[in-house]
């Protein structure tokens, strides 16, 4: 049973190249698609497959956001798995239409329907024709489709594919505007609210896609609405082709056929790719871009926030300097966090992700280039078993990532600073701020306080002045 106990530092077993996955550090593709779709105004996410997938993903998303999350399903059974899921898909679409009256239905596939090779575009087309033939008074809302088998990639591939599908199937070539498209990636509702504030302060008309700031973090109200308010309006998505520029966030998206790329190729919208704006320098990049696009200087309130962040970095340096951190989660998030840790003097020793784009290492090298005396271990496509094996000889002081790393934190008796998704063992994951000067400030405070709390707890004396 020794393998369940923390291994001693010098007893490193030869790493085994496992083919199985033990305690995954990724979620499945359609979940990412559903999250993205939830950020569109009036949309109902719909999964084509067995109902279990929809139920599982709903319960998972809900446990993080503590908000309603409806995902419809075509509820295929054995018969449909053999003869095809077309009839169920059509019936399901009709029922969603009757009860929700949505502005948009977004269909993602699952492993089942991908394995049997259902032709979703054809089914949807037939459905649209059949519906038109009924002569119903209610017009059919648009239906956006995305292929998202989870035997290809992770929830992040699902997320980006869904965003691309929205733009691909909804954006038109309207008149040019001064608007800026902002594709923020998978960040928290609090992050999106903050991004909106920043755009507003620059006087920029922004189109943020997806916008989960209200749909997945809504207020308590007197009456419940079946489809939550908020989300990117359809008209705005349609107008994205006319925007002056697109800012697409995600350090590992380089060279990929993303929504931003599509807008550039099809409509000639200038594409700026940056990483997630986490930490000082990645945020500086975003603000320089916004200065350029708006023709304005960074508003004083934000410059002040930057100044305070720097001030705190100076004040806090003595607490964090040289601490060794393991960072894990989605690749783009890991890149941003690593950049930030390097800036504040923490030494990232292992940067790991369940995602496996093959672009993680280069992205980390780019953001840490002149800051780190020693390049961290970078591992893509790993699970928590690999992370544990890798990390136990690296003597980490800190873990930074989502709730699934808790077992390692417990095993090694070190703090876990919870960021990203999913967070289901702490309250308020949907309100965590990661981005910008303000997000960096909060992350810094949390990291330092976690270190102080551990120091205090470990001391038998009970020092109260740290």
């Amino acid at each position: 049973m020794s393998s369940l106990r923390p291994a001693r530092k010098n007893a490193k077993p030869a790493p085994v190249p496992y083919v199985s996955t033990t305690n995954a550090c990724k979620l499945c593709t359609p979940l990412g698609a559903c999250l993205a779709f939830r950020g569109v105004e009036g949309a109902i996410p719909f999964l084509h497959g067995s109902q279990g997938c929809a139920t599982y993903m709903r319960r998972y998303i809900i446990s993080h956001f503590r908000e309603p999350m409806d995902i419809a399903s075509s509820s295929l059974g054995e018969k449909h798995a053999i003869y095809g899921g077309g009839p169920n898909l059509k019936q399901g679409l009709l029922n969603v239409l009757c009860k929700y009256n949505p502005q948009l239905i977004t269909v993602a596939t699952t492993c089942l329907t991908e394995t049997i090779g259902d032709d979703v575009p054809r089914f949807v087309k037939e459905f649209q024709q059949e519906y038109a033939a009924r002569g119903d008074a209610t017009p059919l809302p648009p239906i956006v489709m995305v292929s998202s088998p989870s035997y290809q990639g992770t929830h992040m591939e699902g997320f980006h594919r869904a965003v691309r599908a929205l733009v691909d199937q909804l954006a038109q070539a309207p008149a040019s505007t001064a608007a800026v498209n902002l594709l923020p990636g998978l960040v928290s509702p609090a992050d999106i609210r903050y991004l909106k504030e920043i755009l507003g302060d620059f006087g920029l008309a922004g189109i943020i896609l997806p916008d989960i700031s209200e749909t997945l973090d809504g207020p308590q109200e007197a009456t419940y609405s079946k489809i939550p308010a908020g989300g990117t309006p359809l008209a705005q998505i349609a107008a994205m082709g006319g925007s002056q520029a697109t800012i697409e966030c995600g350090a590992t998206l380089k060279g990929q056929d993303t929504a931003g790329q599509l807008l550039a190729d099809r409509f000639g919208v200038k594409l700026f790719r940056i990483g997630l704006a986490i930490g000082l320098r990645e945020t500086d990049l975003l603000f320089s871009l916004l200065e350029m696009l708006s023709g304005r200087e960074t508003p004083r309130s934000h410059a002040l926030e930057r100044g305070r962040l720097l001030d705190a970095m100076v004040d806090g340096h003595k607490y964090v300097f040289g601490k060794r951190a393991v960072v894990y989660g989605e690749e783009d998030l890991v890149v941003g966090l690593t950049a930030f840790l390097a800036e504040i003097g923490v030494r990232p020793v292992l940067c790991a992700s369940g995602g496996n784009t093959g672009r993680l290492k280069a992205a980390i090298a780019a953001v840490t280039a002149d800051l780190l005396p020693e390049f961290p271990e970078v591992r893509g496509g790993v699970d928590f078993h690999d992370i544990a094996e890798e990390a136990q000889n690296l003597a980490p002081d800190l873990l930074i990532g989502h709730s699934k790393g808790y077992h390692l934190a417990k095993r090694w008796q070190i703090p876990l600073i919870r960021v990203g998704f999913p967070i289901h063992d702490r309250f308020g994951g949907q309100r965590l701020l990661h981005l910008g000067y303000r997000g960096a400030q909060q992350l810094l405070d949390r990291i330092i306080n976690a270190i102080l709390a551990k120091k205090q707890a470990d001391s038998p004396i009970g020092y109260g002045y740290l």
Partner: protein
Amino acid sequence: MSEVLDTNNPETLTPPPEVVKEELLAKYPTKVARKRAKQIVINEVGPDCTVPEIMANVRTIPGIITQRGCTYAGCKGVVLGPTRDIVNITHGPIGCGFYSWLTRRNQTRPAGPDDFNFMTYCFSTDMQEEQIIFGGEKKLRQAIQEAYDLFKPKAIAVFATCPVGLIGDDIHAVCREMKEKLGINIFAFSCEGYKGVSQSAGHHIANNGIFTHVVGLDDSVNGGRFRINLLGEYNIGGDAFEIERLFEECGLNLVATFSGNSTIDQFANSHTADLNLIMCHRSINYVAEMMETKFGIPWIKVNFIGAEATAKSLRKIAAYFDDPELSARVEEVIAREMPAVEAVRAEVHERCAGKKAMLFVGGSRAHHYQELFREMGMETIAAGYEFAHRDDYEGRRVLPNIKVDADSRNIEELHVEPDPQRFTPRITPEDLARLAMGDLTFKDYEGMMPTMANGSLVVDDISQYETEKLIELYRPDIICAGIKEKYVIQKSGVPMKQLHSYDYSGPYAGFQGAINFYQEIDRMVNSKVWKFLKAPWQEHPELTAHYVWE
């Protein structure tokens, strides 16, 4: 929707059930409405406890947003999930395994630091495109080998997710082969999510698998005079711990629990018990039936949810063993526990009596928890299961009349015969008849509906939309359901208690559990938070002016 949060006017009248039913169906397309009409029933308990027929365990209508899960969830998540020392490998893409990674919050208590506990682990073959195209048996074989090398466990179980059946992997053959090779118990479940209509199919498949591969492997009788198994108790929130405590104090010997706080060795030995107690009839009655046929162990239905129900269940067990010493101890325990329960009950009763509850959950809890509400003086105005069958609603008496549809036929019924060596009737036919004259009925479950008031509404496999509609029409004081419904209900201004995961509290079973539940529900239905919904400046702008100007 109307204002449900009007706290100035809590005494709203409940509309008649016929009206409610009509409203629920109004928005559906005709065909859908016709089907749902059979799954929404107005309760009416006739003489001899007969109730109206309800349609249950039928396929969910696509697009309706059900709360149901899949066969895999019922098999791996529900029944096998709570056993701590089997390494469970999900054979499929990553999502299914990830989402069932201890999400049901079953608790367990390893015997010591060297006892296995794999419940915090999530093993998956993490299928990739290559396996979808060329088959996944090779990867599965290697995953089993890796799990073995890593942990040297006593047993490994393999669970199929949707793609597995479609690409034609023979997981049972792989398991047989690896069992031979590694010399530990390795077995598989063909629980692809698309089989059956809900997690219920998965329960059945799990029952079959444990019975075939584990039950009966260890014949040693390890002492104790009153040997029992507890079936269908999954130790959410520590319920099984509380029940175990009571058993111990009464002097009962628990051989195995299926499957809260359990180990595989307990299953292997469970056929040596003398009585099977069924908590959740839906998920586990198959094993009880098969154990009775093969080994001669009778089963009775018990319920440890509710203080009265707990006392009653303990007395039933005592009656079965018919031992004066045991009966005396049981009475002693009840007498010792009840005063504390009664004190809290009386206190919350004052604040909760007359309030209305709705329960839509699971395959037994929607029934069991009505007991607790009754003890608090609260009324259950509507209830339903997510994945139960007709017998769980109407009682086992309807079993002969249940039509077996294609979906149910899909799930194998094991053919079981009395074991030539090990079948021993535990009780003489005379004793059986005598006990049946008393309060003890064997092989029976009365079902939920006969215990509910006339005119209450029973809804099978309720949809999100129907839940919203019911809130609007009934304005209940509390709803019990699962996490998927939780925030919809709370956003409608109604307190919501999760009865799958217990909102991360509990236990609610037994006497101590009843106290916990009374206090919890009292806190929820008498919460003041809803009063603050409107800020003073929204509600009385003139007052604000007053503050500002004077």
